[in-house]
């Protein structure tokens, strides 16, 4: 995984597979406290206590197509190598929350990557899910709710791929503005 956005994409896919109809992605850059925090909270089917205990084990997965589950262990390793950690809480039938914390200026922290791109790619593939995306930079925040752009997503699903680029640009512009 070259950047954090790929890890985030992977965890978002877990939430999608868990049958969530609302997924909250929050990215917080806080140079003052030297912390980068990413949290993904879904209202999917959740995990039992036993599943939760084994979720960081690369040889455990709920999938039947293969016998390994590397997404969480890889992300956890990245967090630990960056001076942080990854924590997961889950309740069966209610949902799962994944929180990744990293040292903002840590030399081994991968770059964030194109968060807007992975979010838009996931949104257009799952129009039935409401994605609530919050980007926080030095306590200033930008919030995006995908159900507010259902008309645009519907347009993309009808074949208007041009809107994918524009939607990504809209998110990137707002993230950039937070940082100026």
């Amino acid at each position, binding site marked *: 995984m070259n950047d954090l956005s790929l890890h985030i994409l992977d965890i978002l*896919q877990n939430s999608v597979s868990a049958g969530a109809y609302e997924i909250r992605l929050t990215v917080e850059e806080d140079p003052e406290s030297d912390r980068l925090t990413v949290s993904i909270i879904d209202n999917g089917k959740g995990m039992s206590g036993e599943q939760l205990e084994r979720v960081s084990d690369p040889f455990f997965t709920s999938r039947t*197509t293969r016998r390994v589950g590397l997404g969480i262990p890889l992300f956890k390793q990245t967090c630990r190598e960056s001076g942080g950690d990854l924590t997961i809480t889950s309740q069966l039938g209610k949902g799962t929350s994944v929180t990744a914390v990293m040292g903002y200026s840590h030399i081994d922290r991968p770059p964030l990557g194109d968060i807007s791109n992975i979010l838009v790619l996931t949104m257009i593939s799952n129009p039935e899910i409401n994605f609530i995306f919050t980007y926080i930079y030095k306590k200033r925040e930008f919030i995006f709710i995908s159900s507010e752009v259902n008309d645009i997503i519907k347009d993309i699903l009808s074949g208007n791929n041009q809107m994918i680029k524009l939607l990504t640009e809209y998110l990137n512009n707002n993230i950039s503005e937070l940082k100026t």
Partner: protein
Amino acid sequence: MNKIKSLDDLRRIKQDLAGGMNIREKSNSPESLVQIRVAMATCGIASGARNVMNTLIEKIEKDKIPAIVTQGGCMGYCYAEPTVEVKKPGEDPVVFSFVNEKVAIDILEKYVLKGELIDGILPVNYRTIEQK
């Protein structure tokens, strides 16, 4: 072009595009379009599936190909990622393996537009004797 900063900006551009000739005629039902699914589990993502998906979207937009691209889960072909499933209307899906940006373009230009098969097809439709 001014920067898109609000949803109103986004909708205004959408309307401008719809009013002009910049977008191709849209389909009323996605089933009448070629449906392309990029496997996007850990194995696919780590192998470059996101770049493949972005390449497909750009090429489809540039050449006005009647297709939509979505994400899929792991099909169990982790060794062959990134994999891409292409379903033409009224035909069985075909799964291509080891897809990179170049192969993605080939899939669109050769298979989708001309119906030519290219290397790297996975036998997803294969049925064992027990299944028959």
